[in-house]
């Protein structure tokens, strides 16, 4: 059982439920204690009344039989045995020690003047601190019940030590609260366990939603879900379907735009090249045809880059599965394609085994656009005498390095800005690195530029650190 963040539903529920249960439990226990105390007081008072009523006649009889000695008659212990036996038993086991006396009730029979005529063994010789009026009164250490007896000229007072009464109440309270000390932590554990179990489906749905992104908009499974979760999952699935449709329309629009734009340019370029081929050498129109061909090629390159930029900024570019995928074959295909196109520049050097280790969470098309731009850049701006080196580091970092004059730090910082070209050559579109930067941004990758390249005094290196998950 693990409670994650303090603002998590699990933490909040656990905290509140535990607090509420504990507080109500304590309140309930206090109320029960109050009621128990009240009932115990009432029971103890009833016992005083009952004792007074049942014993007063017998005690008066005992007084009449033993009054000849003079002074205060002391009722032998235990009072009741003595009273019931009706005489003084010299062989009694009782030695008169108060400590052995387990009857806490104390008795005094007083006359109308308040003098003590008879007292129990455990009662004081001095009168109780209680008025000679029928009913209850509280002294410093005892609670006393007074009743009128005899011919109305004697007062029977039965007292119970307050200490004894409080001790009983405290023992009851302790026995009532002690289990709570153990039960509250057990309750907390039970609440945490129950909440964790109950929130299992919520966590599963949260993990599923977390795993979704532009690259993965597959519906979330709705098996064994509670009704509330099912409603959320249905809504999320509906929303993802709408998002998928919107992204699909956007991608389709970009793809159609590419097709619609490329075809007329292809027609114009092919027709111009035919015109150039059919014009005789030295014809006045040849120069214009050559310029038109060049302009069309430039237009072709620019439109390609603009469409790449539109794609890079419109779609996420993560792997369709939402997880890493092998990119080595794609990188090889891009390299092969550039080699076959016979682009001007140095040789491309790459280790097949090294490239095969490449794996990251990025769409093949987005990755191919990045690599094509980085390699084309290296070929365009690198020196002809040094190969373009392509390396894969740690399975997810691609480095493309080329020779040539180093780029100044100020210029390096500006290279990912749109339409910003390196001053070394000016025939690029100025969009290549901006496209790579846009794709990197959308796929949690990172583009780093170095010039001079590491361990060299010259050249340039672009490093694409792809995201893995």
């Amino acid at each position, binding site marked *: 059982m693990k409670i994650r963040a303090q603002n998590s539903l699990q933490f909040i529920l656990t905290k509140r439920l535990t607090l509420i249960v504990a507080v109500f439990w304590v309140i309930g226990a206090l109320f029960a204690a109050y009621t128990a105390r009240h009932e115990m007081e009432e029971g103890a008072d009833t016992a005083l009344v009952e004792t007074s009523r049942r014993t007063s006649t017998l005690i008066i009889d005992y007084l009449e039989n033993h009054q000849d000695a003079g002074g205060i008659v002391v009722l032998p212990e235990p009072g009741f045995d003595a009273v019931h036996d009706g005489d003084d038993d010299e062989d009694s086991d009782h030695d008169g020690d108060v400590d052995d006396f387990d009857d806490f009730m104390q008795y005094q029979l007083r006359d109308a003047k308040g003098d003590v005529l008879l007292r129990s063994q455990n009662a004081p010789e001095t009168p109780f601190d209680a008025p000679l009026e029928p009913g209850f009164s509280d002294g410093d250490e005892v609670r006393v019940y007074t009743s009128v007896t005899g011919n109305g000229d004697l007062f029977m007072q039965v007292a119970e030590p307050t200490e004894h009464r409080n001790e009983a109440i405290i023992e009851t309270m302790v026995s009532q609260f002690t289990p709570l000390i153990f039960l509250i932590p057990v309750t907390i554990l039970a609440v945490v366990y129950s909440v964790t179990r109950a929130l299992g489906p919520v966590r599963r749905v949260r993990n599923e939603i977390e795993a979704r992104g532009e690259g993965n908009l597959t519906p979330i499974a709705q098996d064994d879900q509670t009704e509330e979760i099912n409603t959320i999952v249905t809504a999320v699935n509906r929303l993802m379907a709408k998002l998928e449709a919107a992204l699909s329309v956007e991608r389709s629009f970009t793809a159609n735009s590419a097709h619609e734009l490329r075809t007329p340019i*292809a027609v114009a370029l092919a027709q111009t090249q035919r015109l150039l081929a059919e014009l005789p050498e030295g014809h006045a129109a040849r120069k214009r045809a050559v310029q038109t061909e060049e302009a069309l090629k430039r237009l072709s390159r620019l439109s390609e880059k603009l469409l790449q930029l539109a794609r890079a900024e419109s779609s996420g570019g993560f792997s369709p599965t939402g997880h890493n995928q092998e990119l080595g074959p794609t990188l090889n295909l891009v390299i092969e394609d550039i080699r076959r196109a016979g682009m001007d520049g140095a040789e491309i050097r790459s280790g097949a085994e090294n490239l095969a280790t490449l794996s990251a969470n990025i769409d093949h098309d987005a990755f191919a656009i990045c690599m094509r731009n980085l390699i084309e850049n290296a070929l365009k701006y690198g020196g002809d005498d040094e190969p373009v080196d392509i390396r894969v580091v740690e399975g997810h970092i691609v480095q493309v390095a080329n020779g040539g004059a180093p780029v100044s730090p100020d210029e390096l910082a500006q290279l990912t800005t749109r339409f910003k070209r390196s001053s070394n050559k000016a025939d690029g579109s100025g969009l290549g690195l901006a496209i790579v930067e846009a794709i990197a941004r959308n796929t949690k990758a990172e583009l780093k530029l170095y010039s001079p390249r590491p361990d060299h005094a010259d050249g340039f290196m672009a490093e694409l650190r792809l995201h893995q998950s």
Partner: protein
Amino acid sequence: MRILLVEDELMLADAVRDHLLASGEAVDHSASVVDAEIMLRGTNYDVLLLDLNLPDGKGLDLLRDLRRQGSATPCIILTAQDQISDRIAGLNAGADDYLVKPFDLNELSARLAAVSRRYSGNPNPFVELQGGVEVDLAGRSVLRGGEHIDLTSREWALFDQMVKRPGQTLSKRQLEEALYEFGAEIESNTVEVYVSRLRRKLGRDVIKTVRGVGYRVEG
């Protein structure tokens, strides 16, 4: 080479066909999948140039059907779909190369030559023949005793077919197909006329006649 160009954009098809004809290739054009299927059933083409988005279907489906039927005709896809996934799909369907529009016509020629060489079993563009004749198939040049020999487009088209398969006898029919675009009229002695011209320029020993079968060059 006899080439089938499947392209629905007529102005582009026109320019590509003119370029290939000027290079001495025989080109037939189809603007739809249905027409292309009919033409492929009736003729053995050396290369298929295939657009992907056609008015009555997908070029990839046509290519897959062709491969399922066991056809090994080399195919180069010409398309405006430039994504790497499109390229992978094209290559997986059985294409030999993939050229994205807009393309340079000379690059198209180079790709055609490369694919054709791969299929001839000899990817090396430099071929030495008897009689001190050296041929550069990629550069379309012929040297005899170190001297450059000029060949016309038609002469080159015929010679190219034989040089790609040195030692292999090609029938008169095979050579005719390579020489003329679909529908063009062929005289009964056209092949003999061009063989005769080539022998005059390259020497009599370069092209052998296999009586009743056809012609061949010895590497």
